[in-house]
């Protein structure tokens, strides 16, 4: 019984970091497996709740920054810097702005223009657009629940719902899909899957709207991954938090996934 308590306590404190013996217990104890399933559902809700969409709006500043960055031109890049540090919106509840804030804003504007003036002439050659890999990595931070090590697969119904309207079907060669979510990514709904590989959980995002010409390896913010081109169907991003996995192994996982996909259009 104490193992059950340990297992459940671990699920409620660090669901992504279960020790091997506890994971084994979770597979063998029916009551704990049921508890884990409910806990996982709660965890998914918790992760969603944390993703305040208002933060994106709050990035009202950020929207400008993104636009500037996307333009890729020097002036726009500088505008991106400006937008990055100047808040554009305040809540109605804060009618009065503290003097310290006003002072810091002026400093922000001054610093911004100083930086912009110094770099605008050269920025056109540096591409400030957030990279596809960077956006994939950023997306990961919002869904830590996806990184659970588990043998429990999502139900066929859940997987079917996520794959709806994606014009693709997953064959049996994919392996255990332990997480499936239809996520918004760069303005499109994309399947975000986690496959349990022998090296640990591996995230796969099918990016039919994002094309790359050649495989793109990346290693950012503790995530290591590769984005593979899929001719005619955009690209597939595969990434892991296991730093021991080399790019070649990730490429093999991506290729295995791609070969298990059946495109329906």
């Amino acid at each position, binding site marked *: 019984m104490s193992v059950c308590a340990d297992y459940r306590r671990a699920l409620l404190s*660090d669901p992504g970091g279960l020790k091997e013996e506890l994971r084994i217990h979770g597979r063998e104890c029916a009551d704990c497996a049921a508890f884990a399933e409910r806990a996982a559902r*709660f965890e998914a809700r*918790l992760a969603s709740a944390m993703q305040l969409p208002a933060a994106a709006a709050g990035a009202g500043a*950020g929207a400008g920054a993104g636009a500037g960055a996307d333009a890729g031109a020097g002036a726009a890049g500088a505008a991106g810097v400006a937008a990055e*540090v100047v808040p554009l919106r305040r809540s109605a509840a804060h009618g009065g702005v503290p003097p310290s804030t006003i002072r810091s804003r002026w400093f922000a504007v001054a610093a911004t223009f100083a930086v912009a003036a110094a770099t605008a002439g050269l920025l056109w050659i540096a591409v400030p657009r957030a990279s596809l890999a960077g956006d994939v990595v950023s997306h990961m931070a919002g869904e830590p629940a996806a990184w659970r090590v588990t043998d429990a697969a999502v139900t066929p119904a859940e997987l079917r719902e996520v794959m709806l309207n994606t014009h693709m079907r997953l064959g049996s060669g994919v392996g255990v899909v332990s997480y499936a979510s239809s996520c918004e990514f760069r303005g499109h709904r994309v399947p975000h899957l986690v496959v349990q590989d022998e090296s640990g959980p591996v995230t796969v995002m099918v990016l039919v709207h994002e094309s790359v010409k050649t495989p793109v390896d990346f290693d950012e*913010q503790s995530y290591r991954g590769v984005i593979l081109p899929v001719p005619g169907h955009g690209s597939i991003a595969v990434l892991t938090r296991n730093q021991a996995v080399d790019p070649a192994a990730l490429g093999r996982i991506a290729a295995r996934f791609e070969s298990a996909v059946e495109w329906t259009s």
Partner: protein
Amino acid sequence: MRDPLAGNQKHARFQALCQSLRPDLLRFAIWLSRDRAVAEDVVQETLLRAWKAQDTLEDEKAAKPWFLTIIRREYARTFERKRLATVNLDDLVASEEPALAASDAEDLAELRRAIFELPEDYREPLVLQVLMGCTTAEIAAQLNLSTAAVLTRLFRARRQLRLLCGEDTNLDPDE
């Protein structure tokens, strides 16, 4: 002689890094301060300080804890500068109306309210773990706590949330 091109590329990379982290930093600040306007100010100051100190970030892989350290310090400074007003949760939830207008908002609004109600000692490690993807060790380092203390706070946070949200807690373990 300093290579202006290399410096420029470095600035561009840092800018891209700021852009990629900014949404989550803002979310973190909102969860921490429970005040959107304060959060926006804190993030702004954080990015400014980070921009000025970017040379001290030697490894981009360490960017997340680096930014978290700055934003937590900046939040503490804000707290020192002015005594933050008591937050009325009803007003707070109402002010987050755009956030709650999403399709799944009804389900999540209750949970968000419950998160806001958590004591800061429990709320912060939970946000660091769930939103920022920090490991227990990283949270312990940020909060200057032992990993055991962090795990205890995370457990209490989830248990309290589950109670507040009407989850079945009969099978939850004791602490």
